[in-house]
């Protein structure tokens, strides 16, 4: 066989290999079992945690049990957890376990507005409620 024929065969082998490789690679763009898996994403830098601010000391406030209408307890509604991100301002009852949150009467709404429904509480006679400073919940991981 002459040299030029061998060259033609070499070009044909190269062309066929190229066509075969192209068709195979395009038909299989991804291989989950590929031996090399370079890391493709860097972990984002963790956000700096907000500095804790000292809570202002507020005087206790006592709710009179005879105030009408009185708050009621809705036990099926879960209390906000520490993972929720929200700013809560309001009055927290410290009388019962699990802790419950007071929902104010319409006349007191300006002081204790909440974005979501919260458990309602009926305070027993002699139970004190206290006003707490604003609390910001941040998620923890």
């Amino acid at each position, binding site marked *: 066989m002459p*040299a030029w024929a061998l060259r033609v065969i070499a070009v044909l*082998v190269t062309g066929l290999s190229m066509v075969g490789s192209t068709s195979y690679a395009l038909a299989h763009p991804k291989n989950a079992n590929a031996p090399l898996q370079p890391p493709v994403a860097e972990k984002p830098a963790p956000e700096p945690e907000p500095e804790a601010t000292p809570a202002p000391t507020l005087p206790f406030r006592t709710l009179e049990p005879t105030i009408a209408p009185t708050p009621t307890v809705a036990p099926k509604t879960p209390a906000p957890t520490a993972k929720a991100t929200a700013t809560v301002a309001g009055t927290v009852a410290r009388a019962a376990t699990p802790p419950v949150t007071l929902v104010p009467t319409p006349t007191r709404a300006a002081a204790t507005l909440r974005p979501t429904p919260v458990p309602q509480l009926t305070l027993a006679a002699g139970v004190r409620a206290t006003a707490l400073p604003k609390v910001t919940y941040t998620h923890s991981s």
Partner: protein
Amino acid sequence: MGDLEFWFIARITGLTAFAVLSLSVLSGEALRTSVLDFLAKNRAVRKLHDFTTPLWLPLVFAHVIALLFDKTARIQPINVVVPFVTDYGELPIGLGTVAFDIVMIVTITSWLRSKMNNTLWTWIHRTSYIGFVALFFHAALSGTDFDAPLVSAIAWSTAAGLAILGISRIVWGRLPA
């Protein structure tokens, strides 16, 4: 052109370069054995061996350049020349670097053969066997497509055939026609 296009180019040129480099090694071995005597005389086989260089050289360069531009592959220019310094897959990628270095040295010394000592050139040229072994394991250990049965069967059978020829050449010298 994005990473995916460069990735396709790297895979396609890598597979094709492996096939053409196999042909180059086969034609080189045929010069010292008689495996292609039924097909052509040594002069024609020698011309074929020389002719394969302009076939695989652009494929190898395209493979390397595509990986350099592919940000996902994270191949740095130093990784093209210095082996085993990547931040992942040191061995598979390093074997590719070794193979690249060897075939470049073999090719350049072949171009400069007339100005070189023939014995030195011969021994340098024999390192191409080491280069092909490194190339094969680079492809087998890092090739995305080498776990495919079709690609794997062709690659392993080609490498096995060339290995048998090479060992026969070493043990028995020039094979009978």
